[in-house]
């Protein structure tokens, strides 16, 4: 069955540093990979989508990579700020695969 793994432990970093979150998937080959942000008590909010033929995608301070050989996506936030503190979810998708989300990684940025 499809499986998505994200670090379950919270990632604590200092303001200004780069945060890197990992998403690994097994037993399927999604054509897309999406990243979402979720704040406590709220629904997830879409951040970025990367396609299988794109190695890297950027949006402002965010960067996503997609390695279909390793079956892994990395999500980077550069110059992190306390306001970036949230849970980040990855969601491989595409084709006939029904939407499946990882459990998310909590990011805590300390001032």
């Amino acid at each position: 069955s499809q499986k998505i793994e994200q670090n379950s432990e919270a990632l604590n970093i200092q303001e200004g540093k780069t945060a890197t979150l990992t998403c690994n998937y097994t037993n399927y080959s999604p054509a897309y990979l999406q990243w979402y942000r979720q704040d406590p008590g709220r629904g997830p909010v879409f951040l970025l989508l990367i396609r299988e033929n794109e190695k890297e995608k950027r949006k402002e301070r965010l960067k996503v990579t997609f390695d279909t050989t390793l079956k892994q996506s990395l999500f980077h936030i550069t110059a992190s700020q306390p306001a970036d503190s949230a849970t980040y979810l990855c969601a491989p998708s595409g084709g006939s695969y029904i939407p499946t989300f990882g459990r998310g990684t909590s990011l805590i940025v300390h001032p």
Partner: protein
Amino acid sequence: DAGITQSPRHKVTETGTPVTLRCHQTENHRYMYWYRQDPGHGLRLIHYSYGVKDTDKGEVSDGYSVSRSKTEDFLLTLESATSSQTSVYFCAISESGHQETQYFGPGTRLLVL
């Protein structure tokens, strides 16, 4: 929240009672989804719809049914609520398919006593 509302936002009910949650969208998106989110499990898909009267099961559909009689409304029904259905329920929409960006509603907190 991209024109998505959920009602009610909070509900407390007793085991064995029927419960219906409503998702309403103003975006005219074709796909609509119901998820539940629980600690340690993340978001899990319950049911989804790919058009009016067209629905299919997700990962955790047992004990739930859905209906979609209009493009804008997607209803989730717990025929006989159980304590294991205590959760936060999110509705989401996407324009034309699973690969598209999903936009989520604010969620409904359901407590089954």
